[in-house]
């Protein structure tokens, strides 16, 4: 796993394309995710962001193009294989295991990193016992990290919305990812929660844990607050990429979000 | 695709070796297919709208057969050799049975499936199996464990007899009655408001509701039509095969379901195509004296085809209209 071979990029997507019948959802998008950074993927609704995510995580097979993770080609591999290779994710609509407790949810996330199989689980070898105990301890630590340790044995569906989002992050962290994909993590959060979350991503995940984070986000405060780089998709194509500030001023981006009229307006007011 | 090719080769060989027997079995297969088509359409209609495999459907067909025999003989005094009044009686029996089976089917939906509308998808499926067993035993309690015979009123004389191939009237009658029923169904689905409501609900229940369609009523109506089709099939089958038994519904129902799947479940013309295909395959298997396993193995053959289709081409021959599975 040499950084020189990958140019310091954790993930490289080249000319990735997804077609559904006649509809082109993602149109030859190339994308890199450098190690240790927080990258935001933004764009109007229907731009293809979640479809792109789904291709990165193996839920969809790209119609064309390649995806390389840590130097290894993972194009079209099934989701569990990609998770095993180091991508963890959360979902746009929370997909926790509602009727499992918080700690159980997190322990499911550890599935790939554990080794117990059918046979030694039945016999419960000392190895399995130790593994389970260690997993349980690690799960509690993860819950502690997101501030949910008190609710470890609460059923996921009984948690308030904000805490469910945190649990999803804890579960994703349990897969021990190198790259964490967050799909609209602050949807439905109030400004206070969003601010806390922004801090969490920048300070805790990136700086302390040294994780690489790729986020789909709509909340511009979050995006501008923590991103090292922002990429913009519109109608399945990448229309801009750069620092948050650069992207904010980009004409095409403004046009995509607000329409041509808005761009004209801004030009007339000399803001461009 | 290879399979189809192989089958075609075998069939051609058989056709050339004993053409009259081939033609004979083919024609019988078509009659089978007609009956299966009526049942298969019922499955496909319900699946299209609820994504539910209504296991009990075949048993409604069986009840229809029993009902037809009972009404025909006890109420109308149907028996062999009655002359032209037979036509009237058969017609009346057909209509009444269709009504009865339609109501039974709609009632089943109301009692057993509607309360489970919000439950995970497997719940109504399990319930349908329970209902299927209940109906089978209702048939058992009503008419006993043995075959019930219907009066043999369809004439057996030949429509035509060409080179050793006899096509008898009773087969033709089945087809003659089936075709208008199918056309009526087509007209209903394509051209009436109710039909449009059915198609809309099948595509997207929530959107249909927003558009002002009474989803519950539409679903009930679909079950009514499906039941009526099963009733028609039951009537025709009982008069053609002249025997009905309480456990036939399940077996024949599963064959018809396979037909619906072959054609592409949710797809109406597909169901008919699939039914004809299955009818032919069954007939060829049982009638032709070649290396086919024979009638002992019909069930297995049909199920194997079902499994192969579901595994390799779940959208069936003509593809599904609903957005799942393909």
């Amino acid at each position, binding site marked *: 796993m040499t950084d020189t071979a990958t140019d310091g990029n954790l993930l490289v997507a080249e000319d990735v394309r997804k077609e*559904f019948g006649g*509809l082109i959802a993602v149109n030859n998008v190339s994308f890199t995710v450098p190690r240790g950074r927080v990258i935001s993927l933004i764009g109007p609704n229907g731009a293809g*962001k*979640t*479809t792109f995510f*789904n291709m990165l*995580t193996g*839920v969809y097979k790209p119609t064309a193009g390649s995806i390389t993770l840590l130097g290894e080609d993972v194009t079209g591999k099934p*989701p*569990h294989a990609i*998770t*095993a290779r180091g991508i963890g994710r959360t979902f746009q609509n929370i*997909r926790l*295991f509602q*009727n499992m407790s918080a700690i159980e949810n997190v*322990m*499911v*996330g550890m*599935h*790939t*990193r554990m080794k117990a199989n*059918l046979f030694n*689980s039945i016999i419960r070898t000392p190895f399995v016992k130790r*593994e389970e105990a260690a*997993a349980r301890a690690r799960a509690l630590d993860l819950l502690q990290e997101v501030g949910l340790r008190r609710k470890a044995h609460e059923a996921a569906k009984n948690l308030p919305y904000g805490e469910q989002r945190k649990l999803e992050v804890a*579960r994703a962290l349990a897969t021990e990812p190198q790259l964490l994909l967050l799909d609209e993590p602050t949807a439905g959060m109030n400004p206070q929660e969003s601010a806390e979350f922004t801090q969490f991503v920048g300070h805790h995940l990136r700086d302390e844990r040294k994780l690489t984070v790729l986020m789909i986000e709509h909340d511009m405060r979050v995006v501008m607050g923590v991103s090292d780089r922002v990429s913009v998709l519109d109608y399945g194509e990448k229309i801009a990429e750069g620092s948050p500030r650069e992207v904010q001023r980009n004409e095409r981006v403004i046009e995509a979000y607000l329409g041509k009229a808005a761009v004209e307006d801004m030009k007339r007011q000399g803001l461009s | 695709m290879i399979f189809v090719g192989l089958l075609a080769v075998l069939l051609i060989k058989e056709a050339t070796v004993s053409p009259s027997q081939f033609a004979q079995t083919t024609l019988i297969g078509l009659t089978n297919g007609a009956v299966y088509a009526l049942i298969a359409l019922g499955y496909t209609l319900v699946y299209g709208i609820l994504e539910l*495999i209504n296991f009990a459907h075949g048993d409604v067909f069986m009840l229809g057969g029993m009902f037809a025999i009972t009404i025909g003989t006890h109420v109308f005094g149907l028996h062999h050799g009655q002359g032209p009044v037979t036509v009237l009686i058969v017609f009346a029996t057909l209509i009444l049975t269709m009504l009865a089976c339609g109501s039974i089917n709609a009632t089943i939906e109301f009692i*057993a499936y509607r309360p489970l509308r919000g*439950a995970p998808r*497997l719940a109504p*499926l*399990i*319930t349908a*199996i*329970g*209902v299927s*067993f*209940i109906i*089978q*035993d209702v048939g*058992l*309690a009503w008419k006993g*464990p043995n075959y019930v015979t219907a009066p043999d009123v369809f004439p057996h004389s030949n429509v035509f007899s060409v080179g050793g191939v006899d096509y008898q009237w009773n087969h033709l009658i089945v087809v003659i009655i089936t075709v208008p029923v199918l056309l009526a169904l087509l007209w209903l689905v394509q051209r009436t408001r109710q039909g449009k409501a059915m198609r809309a609900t099948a595509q997207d229940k929530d959107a249909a509701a927003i558009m002002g369609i009474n989803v519950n009523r539409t679903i009930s109506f679909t079950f009514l039509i499906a039941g009526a089709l099963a009733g028609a099939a039951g009537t025709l089958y009982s008069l053609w095969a002249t025997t009905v038994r309480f456990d036939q519904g*399940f077996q024949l129902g*599963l064959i018809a379901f396979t037909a619906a*799947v072959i054609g592409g479940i949710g797809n109406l013309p597909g169901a008919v195509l699939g039914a004809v295909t299955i009818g032919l395959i069954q007939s060829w298997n049982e009638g032709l004296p070649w*290396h*086919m396993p024979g009638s*002992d193995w019909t069930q297995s053959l049909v*199920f*194997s085809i*079902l*499994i192969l289709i*579901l*595994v390799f081409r*779940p959208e069936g021959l003509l593809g599904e209209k609903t*957005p*799942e*599975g*393909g």
Partner: protein
Amino acid sequence: MGHTAEPVDLQGRLSARWHELPELQRTGVVIALELVLAGLLLFIDKALGFGVGAVVAVYWIYRLPPVPWRLAAQAVLVALFLALGPRSFGILLAAAFAVFWIPERRRSLVVPAVAIGAAIFYPFYQGHMFTIPVFGSWPDVATGVVMLVFVMMAIGLNIVVGYAGLLDLGYVAFYATGAYTAAFFTSQQFAGQKCPTPGVSVTNCTVAVVPRHKFDFGAIGLTPGTGGIHISVWLLLLLSGVITAVFGIVIGLPTLRLRGDYLAIVTLGFGEILPQIARNGDNLFGTGVNLTNGPNGITPLDSIGFGNRLSDATGGVLPSNFLTCCKASHFGHQIQSTDIFFWVAIVLLLITVFCSLRLQYSRLGRAWIAIREDETAAAAMGIPLMRTKTWAYASGAFFGGVAGAYYAVFRSATFPGDFFFNISVFILCMVILGGMGNIWGVIIGAAFLAYLNQEGLANTGSWLNTNLSANSFNLLVAGIFLALLLWLLVRAREQMMRYVLVGLIVVDLVLFVGLRIIHLPIDVPLYASGIYGLIILIVMLLRPEGLIPSRRRAAELHEGVHDEPLYDAVHAGAEA
């Protein structure tokens, strides 16, 4: 209830008046009515009357404050039965009461221990037990063996349906595979024939033909020189399980990626094809190969036993051959071979339960539940869907195979007539009734339904036919029931009570009306399938989580899961 000033309807008025009475009086009236009910039932069948009376008594005893009233009342009730009624019932009551006095924490250890103990000693006290109302005598030991076999199968299916959420409608295929594997390896099925005179064909042989293939590895009670493959039955059980598991993996590979309802149909298909192969296997696909001996089945199978060496080593406690064992007699009961089969079955069941519990709380068990709840999320968390589902399938198949093999050995035969689709549904009914996912519920549900199937339905039938003749007096009594029950229904506040009363009303109505239409005698076992279907329907509509639900499952069924299978997510339209 009853806030409006002037309740207009009759029920409303009665209800209001009722609630005006003080609590004690109301309780008194209800108890009195229930006792009258029991009394009336006495006229139909004494056992039923006393049974209902006992149930009423126990129910109200638990409303009393524990000490001293409850204890005293319990003691009185037990004494009553010990003195007057069937003594065994008194002992049972005493044991049941005692269990509930044990603090909750210890109870989870004591109850299974007591249950296992009770099961082990069953052959000894089976003959002395009281008559159960309606169901008659307690099941005999042979029925007990069958019950245990079916419980094993239900636990196996529970892993597939209850844990992993895969609807398997073809479980009978595994049962058949296990049974036939047993038959292949402990019988003369593959003996073949040849003439001892060299060079002479079988058809022209002038002397008796001898078997062509002989293989013996640890078989018991075998005459030397018998043809066919024979191996030790213990090895065989394991082998059957393994072969069935492999078979499960083989059919799982192409089919487990299908979504729920398609998988159900495909498993149904296999569940139909396999028995048909068994039935027609004497002429496999028209080729003349006799694999399964067709409709005649394969019989006899070798006996089971521990062999001479082990038997001598344990001084005869472990019999060398189950079928020729047993001269010992304890507690006034002559031990028979059926008893030995029963005890071995208990051991097999305990192993099955053990494995199932261990799996439930392991990494794999969590993965199964995750798949059941939300397949796509599970995959995203690193769970390999196909592999994990296949393990569930294989495990279920293993236990089904072992159960099937043991059953075949017990009956020393296997016939294709034993296997048909209804059995798959029957076992599914057990899992549903018991509570999908909860192993204790499944055990109870399975034992009860297996009992019904073997003896229960027949006994119920004969009870109905003798006690409910179209005697006008009985019908009158039935009519009074109805009135009383309706009266009580107005008052019943608890869910469970209401379920029971609704159930009683339904049964009563059915009998009342049915007896007018259907002519006794009714052959109840004939309608077994319909009854199981009815059970499925009622459970799914009223209490889909089953008798003893896994608390998780109850929530899922009432509130739904994220149902979209990964297969569909991958093939679905754009989700931009």
